[in-house]
């Protein structure tokens, strides 16, 4: 085996430059793979209809009425969660904070859902 030396000899000075520059550019863009954008709005639905669309920039709390009672939703800068819900199993409450676009907490018994949206939608539709 002759090793890599004969192959490296084929690279000219500018080739190294291009190689390093493009590698750096690609490496810098790789973190984009892990972040599907930034959540910008919290969309609260009741009975499938949009009840409120809240800006994730401003902290506030909102109560949504459903067949079982009121679901309390809290918004903080960059994230939102269901604080309390009258449903029996509390799945949507236990999901905790949602911050990335596409994340959704569904309080099915009370027919309330909380979804984070970004500038672009990740999914065309979701079905459960």
């Amino acid at each position: 085996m002759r090793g890599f030396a004969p192959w490296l000899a084929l690279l000219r000075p500018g080739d190294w430059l291009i190689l390093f520059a493009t590698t750096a550019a690609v490496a810098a863009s790789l973190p984009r793979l892990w972040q599907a954008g930034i959540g910008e709005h919290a969309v609260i639905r009741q009975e499938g209809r949009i009840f409120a669309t809240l800006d994730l920039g401003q902290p506030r709390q909102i109560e949504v009425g459903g067949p079982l009672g009121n679901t309390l939703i809290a918004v903080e800068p960059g994230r939102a969660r269901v604080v309390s819900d009258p449903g029996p199993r509390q799945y949507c409450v236990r999901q905790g904070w949602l911050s990335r676009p596409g994340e959704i907490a569904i309080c099915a018994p009370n027919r309330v859902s909380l979804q984070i949206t970004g500038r672009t939608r990740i999914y065309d539709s979701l079905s459960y």
Partner: protein
Amino acid sequence: MTRSVIELPVSDEDRRIAGLASAAVLLSLVDAAVPSPLPGIKPGLANIVTLVVLLRYGWGTAIWVSLLRVLAASLLLGYFLAPGFFLSLSGTACSLLTLGLARHLPSRWFGPVSLSIFAALAHIGGQLVVARLWLIPHDGVFLLAPLFAAAALFFGTLNGLVAARLLAEPAPTSPVHD
């Protein structure tokens, strides 16, 4: 009924293009046989031929060889005029245009590896743009762009090295014997 014979004059240039294009088609078939972790990530071995042709016979011959390769490979693999064909065509067109510009770089400093990296990145860029405009009209297409770019960089470098290695050999005086 009179027999008419249509004779098409075949030049040495035509024979050379045909021979080189068939080599490129063969490499496209090898490419298609290589398992890929993600649709769209391929070694692009046929680009080795494009690079060698570009640097040895010029841009015009490279265009002929590339377009014939896209056409013949799509017929052999059964995706002629399917979406994959137009992706292949747009990627090849973009990389040919890029090569047309990049070949004017001073060759003392920039060799086949630079050209290959440019061509590979242009190829994936052209494909993504067509995919965004036509096939998947959604910005989500670009989410995987860093992955495609990384693959293009990796395979572009390898193909460029192989092309440089081939170009270091003396040119065959007549590539096609008949």
